[in-house]
């Protein structure tokens, strides 16, 4: 299944670092997200777009994960990219394929 079925997401930017939140619609799905949306999966998904490290922070009380991606934006204020802020990265993350819920 696509991540989009279980979670929503928003991208923010600071300098050349992007953060992408991933929030379960239903708190009951949080554990499934935590198990399958690892920093390694996210890093692999964004290969070619993100040059640096992917760090994951867990916020179980709101059913959310926060991914911090360095080297994601080519420097917002000088970037040649059409979407210099990386606003669209959250939508790209939700296209990730994960196993169905048990």
């Amino acid at each position: 299944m696509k991540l989009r079925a279980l979670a929503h997401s928003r991208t923010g930017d600071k300098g050349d670092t992007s953060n992408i939140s991933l929030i379960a619609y239903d708190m009951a799905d949080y554990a499934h997200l935590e198990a399958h949306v690892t920093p390694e999966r996210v890093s692999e998904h964004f290969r070619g777009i993100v040059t640096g490290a992917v760090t994951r922070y867990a916020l179980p009380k709101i059913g959310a994960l926060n991914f911090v991606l360095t080297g994601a934006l080519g420097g917002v204020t000088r970037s040649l990219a059409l979407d210099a802020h990386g606003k669209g990265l959250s939508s790209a993350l939700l296209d990730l394929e994960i196993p169905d819920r048990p």
Partner: protein
Amino acid sequence: MRTIRMGAGAGYSGDRIEPAVELVEKGDIDYLVFECLAERTIALAQQARLRDPGAGYDPLLDARLRAVLPACAAKGIRIVTNMGAANPVAAAQRTCTLARDLGLTGLTVAAVTGDDLLDAVRAGDFTLAESGERVASLGNRIVAANAYLGAAPIVAALKDGADVVITGRVGDPALFLAPLIHAFGWRMDDWERLGRGTLAGHLLECAGQITGGYFADPGHKDVPDLARLGFPIGVVAEDGTVEITKVAGSGGRISLATCKEQMLYEVHDPARYLQPDVIGDFSDVEMEEVGPDRVRATGATGSPPTGLLKVSVGYVDSYVGEGQISYAGPGALARGRLAREIVRERLALTGVRTSELRCDLIGVDALHGEALAGGREPYEVRLRVAGRTETLAEAVRIGNEVETLYTNGPAGGGGAWKSAREIVAVQSVLVPAERARPAVHLLTS
């Protein structure tokens, strides 16, 4: 328990104006906060001030304040804003003139200065966080260096009776934290309350982004009436607990989902949200829907700040030239690819030197590259060529080479567009907090 009601009247410099008017008229608010200063805006404002010493503040200051000042004065709603940008004193003078034009005499308008650390940063031996190079490597290309100040000078201005407080660069949440410190008499070392007030400010600072803006995804996340999006009101109690709501009947929606997205917006480690007054800790925050379009956030806390202020250093980085042209119908993708190859070859043939060049096909690979696009062929594509150059003249030639595709390129190219611009970029340095000397200037209309 006593509460303070704060409205967020703008989330960026170009934001809509009517939602702030709606907050003033129907929001029963005590404070109206306009956050209008993006990372790079202050450097551009500093360039404007160099050209004209009376300029350098937000170009929409007049329009925003004209729209809300009379009602704010009548109702005793106090305004806090960073629309001063690179020139808070000129902005305060302009505000006094505006107020008098509107028949509002006797208003106290405060300007907060002290964020401009250009001289200290030029003279010091600081390292740029992003590139790892010394500030000195930027030479005379530096145009601005502004520290993110904390809440203290805004609190002082409110204590002095300011009806309107106009700052340059301050931490965005501090615009909201300051009225809370003032109203509740919070101590500046009450880390738990400062952390909670910072969460309130962070939730509110992007205005419409918590009431359903930057959120809608039809069929998955529906939001009613985005054209009339209402801006948020934070109802904060003396213990720092915040409830986010909006004017009844305004557009948009406040839910657990909108509030959770905004809480993590531009946050890295949720346990260490670095601000000048406090390190906010949002890692144990819980949220609860307590009514229609009303969410309560509890559990934030904080710890002492680092003692270092983040300073944004703006500098002239380069020039960027850009050109675009569209192709549609059968074979659009092949013609777009051919156009891309032609422009690449032309730039080489004619000797346009670029340190970086992007040739994207909008509709195919412009945002996330070919891998994520998955090979789906669109009905129409738009070639976008953007290149970085050392001179404006070379930047102009990039757009020209795209435009000449009209008569020299593939069939059916339409809607060509071009631009060339100077790029003022921003990096940051950390400076000991005591190097900044915030000051408050009081004016009367």
